[in-house]
């Protein structure tokens, strides 16, 4: 068993109607992640604890939670880096409706991806030849900078504009729109610009940068949103659609 002092963990338990933090003692191990802690509680102390995870290696974007007040991907967050004097407070992601305990309803998040024009606008069929894309092209490199998003919603939970404006599309959806806008195969440029410049679009961003500060994959949605604002301005002044 562990030689290290145990962790004092507070986990949010409850339903949308009512809930509170419950305290648990969890053994401390080397290289332990926050997801390991949550899983240990669920396996050894309280089988009814609801939470969500899948890949455990930072690819699926399922396991994001609020850890000591900061949204994080828990599978790749080491306890040693975030525990404060052996204390961990783990809650559901902010800015989401809670389903139960640590599981939140992601529907509003993904609905906004669609609303931001985030569905690929195909211009060719399977009968057409495969489009040639130059990896060195400037637009391709811009798109590449944003496509590693794993939909974990950490940026959405970190964003105070999302908290204050329920209509705001949020950093992830706008980042997705920006990557499509720079994708040579996407034919929906006008539709995307219209989608991201309406109410709750890119101009609602207050440039706080919490999305970029907390993105676990090191993406920069703030840069993408600034790009959308520039594209919208160019379009407005007739410098390209």
């Amino acid at each position, binding site marked *: 068993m562990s030689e290290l002092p145990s962790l004092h963990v507070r986990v949010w338990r409850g339903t949308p109607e009512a809930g509170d933090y419950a305290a648990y003692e969890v053994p401390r191990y080397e290289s332990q992640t926050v997801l390991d802690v949550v899983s240990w509680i669920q396996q050894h102390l309280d089988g009814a604890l609801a939470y969500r995870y899948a890949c455990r290696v930072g690819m699926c974007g399922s396991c994001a939670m609020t850890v*000591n*007040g900061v949204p994080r991907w828990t599978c790749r967050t080491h306890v040693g880096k975030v525990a404060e004097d052996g204390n961990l407070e783990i809650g559901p992601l902010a800015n989401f409706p809670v389903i139960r305990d640590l599981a939140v309803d992601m529907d509003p998040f993904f609905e906004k991806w669609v609303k931001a024009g985030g569905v690929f606008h195909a211009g060719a069929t399977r009968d057409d030849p495969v489009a040639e894309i130059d990896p060195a092209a400037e637009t391709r490199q811009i798109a590449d900078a944003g496509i590693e998003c794993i939909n974990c919603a950490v940026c959405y939970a970190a964003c105070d504009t999302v908290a204050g404006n329920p209509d705001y599309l949020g950093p992830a959806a706008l980042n997705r729109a920006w990557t499509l806008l720079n994708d040579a195969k996407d034919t929906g440029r006008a539709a995307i610009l219209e989608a991201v410049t309406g109410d709750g679009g890119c101009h609602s961003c207050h440039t*706080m940068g*919490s999305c970029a*500060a907390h993105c676990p994959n090191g993406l920069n949605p703030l*840069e993408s949103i600034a790009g959308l604002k520039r594209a919208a*301005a160019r379009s407005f002044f007739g410098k390209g659609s």
Partner: protein
Amino acid sequence: MIRPHRRHPLWFAFILHRVSGLALALFLPAHFLMLGSVLEGAAALDAGLAWTDNLLAKIAEFGLVFLLAVHLFGGLRLMALEFLPWSPAQKTMAAASVALAVLVSGGFFLQAV
């Protein structure tokens, strides 16, 4: 208490821009009141200006110049962010806008006292 997810330079730049803008908006009526006093003659304006001729008022004016400068330079940073090609040096630019504001307001204060 600033929540943990907000503790990063660009959020502080955001709140500084908001608070400075709000404080300047609150100051404006006093500014217009003082300027408006000239309508009652030079003596009325001079009396108002004489009231500001003490160290406490100079310190307050230093704060005011800092707010004005930090809002100006912070606003230029935001306009550059939104209209110029992206620069990854956003934190540096936010820090530079505060540094320039300190320089301007500090220069004002040294000259005023």
